[in-house]
């Protein structure tokens, strides 16, 4: 049963996910993936974490222009409506 995708819960799952993936330094909405040293393979895995938790599927097209953590959070919340 996918969890409820509120902004707070999505933010928490994504922040935790990024830390699990080895994000370097402070993780915030404003952080860019480049700052966090998170690469495309890490983002594939983050997409799977999001899918497992919220049932929201992110395809290549969706994520390729995303640069900031906040953009992913907003996209997941929007998609889950």
């Amino acid at each position, binding site marked *: 049963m996918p969890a409820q995708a509120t902004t707070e819960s999505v933010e928490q799952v994504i922040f935790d996910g990024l830390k699990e993936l080895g994000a370097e330094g402070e993780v915030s909405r404003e952080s860019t993936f480049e700052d966090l040293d998170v690469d495309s*393979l890490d983002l*594939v*895995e983050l*997409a*799977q*974490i999001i*899918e*497992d938790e919220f049932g929201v599927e992110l395809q290549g097209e969706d994520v390729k222009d995303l640069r900031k953590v906040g953009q992913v959070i907003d996209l997941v919340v929007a998609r889950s409506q």
Partner: protein
Amino acid sequence: MPEGCALVTGSARGIGAASALALAEAGWPVAINYRSDAAGAEGVAAAIGEAGGGAAAIQADVRDPDAVGELFRAVEERFGPVLVVVNNAGMRADGLAPQLGDDEWERVLDTNLSAAFRVTRRALKPMLRARFGRVVNIASVVGPRANAGQANYAASKAGLIGFTKTVAVEVARRGVTVNAVAPGLVETQLTEGVGNGLVDAIPARRPGTPEEIASCVRFLASKEASYVTGITLTVDGGLSA
């Protein structure tokens, strides 16, 4: 053994069936995927069951993108995460290039190459999360070698080898390996009618058996093969040497 199962596409008979049996012997629960040969697939599952392993025959035409999603859902529900995938489903539709029809070209590319891509795509994300995965693509010596009358088959198998290498390097750092096995002449339904003339060109002077290919699949799927990735293991009795 990591917690999960193996999926072999097109494993109602031939190399697929032998691979399923070998993986079951190695301790994997195995999903026996088939397109239309239900009796064959059930037979393989029964043989595995009798030997004390876990297996289930699951129908899906892997050329259909929606069917691939359904197949994985069914397997995951039955056996848990798919940690080993053997892309074995394959066909041939021979003809010389000037006379090969669009349909023959597309069907072979679709079954042998595109289906393998779609199955692999679906399998990879859970493997990345599990930090363990084994993708084994059944290619052929035809592809790297020429074989008149098989331009479509050769293209699909050479393509599969290229695909293997690139995907391997994309996911290597997560403990997921992607390799190909390239059989030479093996006596299965796929090679019925292939001339005896070929056997004279094989240094081993005989075709291989499906079991001889399956033992290589089993090795590549094993924990022990953790540093082997992006390679094509040729199993052809010396034909390509």
